C-alpha cells in the first residue's frame, strides 16, 4: 500500500506515525493479523529478563530488561543512629519507614538512554514523577518490614559485662532498644529507554530488594557508632512480588476526541513511539503470590476510552495476572 504511493515503509512511519500505527492495527487485507508497528500483537508484552547481583559494591542490585528498556537498580544501606533522627519516638513501631524516611528511591534517566534526555539541567518531570510513584508504591504496598531495618542494642545492666561476646550480653537483663536504623538508598538508573519506564523500574526495585543482604550490624556504646561485620549478611524479608503492568489506549484518531464508533486498541507494554501517540494510560499493580490476586494500585489518566467496566473486567485482570507470572518467574528464576 505504502509502496504504491512511492513511500518506503520507514518513510511512512517517520512522516506520519499515527496513520502508520493505525494501518498496522487495521490491515486492509483480512489475511494479515493486526499488529503494532513494532511487530507485536496488541496485547503482547516484551519478555522480561532479570539479572541479579551484577553490582559488586551495592548490597543488592538487579538489572531488568524488557525489549529496549534496560534499567539497573542498586541498593545501598547506610546506618543512622536514632539519636540523630529528629522527632524520634521509641514508641513508634508502625510508621517508622515513612516518618524517618528509611527508604530513599532516586531515578536517573541517563543521557544517551534516549534521544530526548539531554545532559545537564534539573531532573525532568518524568524522572520526578517516576520517583514519587516508586516511593508511594514502596510504602503503600508494605513491601518491606521495619523490623529488618532496626539495629537493636541492649543497654548495659549494672553488672559488669564480660569482655568477650554478644552471647553473654544477650543474657544480661539490660533494656533492649533500637540504637539505629538502616536507611536504604534505592538508585534506579536507566541504561536504555524505550517506553514503559515504570514497569521496568518497579520490577528492578523489587528484584533488587529481594537480592539485598545487609551486613550484621551492632552498636558500640564506647565509640557511639555502628559496627558492621561481613560475616553472614542478613537478607531482607520481601514476601510479596508486586508487579506493575502498563498499557496505553490508542483511539485511532489523531484528535483526542474519541472516534464515533468508540473503537480503540489497548496496547500492552508500550514503547516510546506508542507512548507518544496515545493520551490515555493505565497501570495496574498486582500481586498474585500464594494463588490469591491482590491489586495494589490502579492508575488511569488522560481519557475516557477505558471505561470503568473494562477496568474491572476479568480479561484485563487476567492479563495482569499473566504478566505477573512472567515477571515473577523472571525475578525468582534467576535466583535459584
Amino acid at each position, binding site marked *: 500500500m505504502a509502496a504504491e504511493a512511492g513511500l518506503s515503509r520507514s518513510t511512512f512511519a517517520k512522516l506520519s506515525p499515527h496513520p502508520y500505527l493505525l494501518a498496522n492495527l487495521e490491515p486492509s487485507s483480512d489475511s494479515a493479523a493486526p499488529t503494532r508497528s513494532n511487530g507485536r500483537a496488541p496485547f503482547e508484552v516484551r519478555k522480561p529478563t532479570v539479572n541479579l547481583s551484577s553490582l559488586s559494591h551495592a548490597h543488592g542490585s538487579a538489572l531488568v530488561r524488557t525489549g529496549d528498556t534496560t534499567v539497573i537498580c542498586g541498593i545501598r544501606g547506610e546506618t543512622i543512629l536514632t539519636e540523630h533522627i529528629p*522527632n524520634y519516638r521509641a514508641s513508634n513501631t508502625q*510508621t517508622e519507614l*515513612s*516518618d524517618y*524516611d528509611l527508604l530513599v528511591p532516586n531515578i536517573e534517566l541517563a543521557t544517551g538512554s534516549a534521544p530526548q534526555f539531554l545532559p545537564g539541567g534539573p531532573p525532568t*518531570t518524568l524522572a*520526578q*514523577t517516576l*520517583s*514519587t*510513584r516508586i*516511593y*508511594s*508504591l514502596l*510504602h*503503600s*504496598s*508494605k513491601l518491606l518490614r521495619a523490623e529488618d531495618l532496626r539495629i537493636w542494642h541492649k543497654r548495659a545492666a549494672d553488672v559488669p559485662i564480660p569482655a568477650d561476646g554478644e552471647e553473654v550480653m544477650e543474657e544480661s537483663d539490660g533494656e533492649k532498644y533500637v540504637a539505629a536504623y538502616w536507611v536504604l538508598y534505592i538508585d534506579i538508573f536507566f541504561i536504555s529507554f524505550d517506553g514503559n519506564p515504570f514497569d521496568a523500574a518497579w520490577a528492578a526495585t523489587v528484584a533488587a530488594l529481594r537480592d539485598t543482604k545487609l551486613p550484621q550490624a551492632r552498636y558500640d556504646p564506647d565509640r557511639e557508632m555502628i559496627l558492621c561485620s561481613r560475616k553472614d549478611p542478613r537478607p531482607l524479608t520481601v514476601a510479596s512480588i508486586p508487579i506493575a503492568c502498563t498499557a496505553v489506549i490508542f483511539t485511532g484518531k*489523531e*484528535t*483526542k*476526541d474519541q472516534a464515533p464508533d468508540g473503537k480503540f486498541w489497548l496496547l500492552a507494554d508500550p514503547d516510546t513511539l506508542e507512548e507518544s501517540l496515545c*493520551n*490515555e494510560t*493505565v497501570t495496574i499493580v498486582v*500481586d498474585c503470590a500464594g494463588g*490469591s*490476586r*491482590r*491489586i*495494589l*494500585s*490502579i*492508575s*488511569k*489518566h*488522560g*481519557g*475516557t476510552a*477505558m*471505561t*470503568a467496566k473494562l*477496568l*474491572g473486567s476479568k480479561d484485563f*485482570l487476567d492479563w495482569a495476572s499473566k504478566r505477573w507470572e512472567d515477571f515473577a518467574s523472571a525475578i525468582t528464576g534467576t535466583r535459584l
Partner: protein
Amino acid sequence: MAPPAAELSHLPKADGSANFSFGGYTITAAVNGPVEAQRRDENPFEALVDVNVRPAAGVGGTAERQLEAILQPALRHLIAIRNFPRCVVQVTLQVMEAPENAYVNSKVMQPRLNLGIIPSLLHAAMLGLLTAAIPLNTVASATCLAITNATAGTTIKVDPSPTEIDQATSVHVLGFTAGRDLLIAESEGSFTAEEWDRVLQTAENVCCRGQETGNDAEMGGYGAESENVLQFMRSVLEAKAAESLHWR
C-alpha cells in the same frame, strides 16, 4: 463534614479564578488563557495545558509534579484544546489550607503522593476554567474513597479524613465526567477485584447521582451528607452569573 464552599473570580488579574474548599482543603485556582505559547513548546494543532500545583508551605517537590501529571491529562481531555492551536492554557493551583492530622508527624515536604487532595484540586481547576470562559468538552468531578477492614467487615468511606486515610487498607480517587465516563482512577493500598468493583460503583453513584432526575431517593445509600459537586458547581456559577447580570 462541612459542605463545599466556593468563591469565584476573586483574583483581579487572572482570566479566571476560583477558591474551592471542602473537607479541610482550600485551593485557589488561577486560570490564564488561551495565550500564545512559547515558540519551542507550541503545538500547531492544539493548545497546551500547563498545570502548576503549589503546596501550602515550601516549594513544590516531586509529589506536586506527580499531582500535576495526574491532573494535566484530565484537564487536557476536558478542555477543547483543538480550538486553540499554538496557545497555552495555564492553570495554577495554590493549596491554601490542608487538614491537620494530629496523630501524625507532619513534615513540610511530603514526598509521598497525597490522594485526598486530588478531588479538591480538580474541582478548583474546573471552577477556574469555567470562570475563565475556556470552552470545555464536558465537566468532571472526582471523589475520594477509603476502604477500612474492621472486624465487622469492609466498609467504604466517602470523603475520608486524613486519619481515616491513614488507617484505611486502600484509598481510591475516581473522577467521572458529566457523561458518566471514568476520567481519573488512582488507587493505592491492597484490595481485591470485588472491592474494586464496589469502589467503582460507589464512586460513580457519588459523582453522578441525581444529575438526570435530581431525586433524593438515590442519595440514600452513599454518604448522603456529601453533596454532589457537579450540582454545587452549577449552583455557584448560576449565582455568579445572576450577580454579574444584575445591572441589566
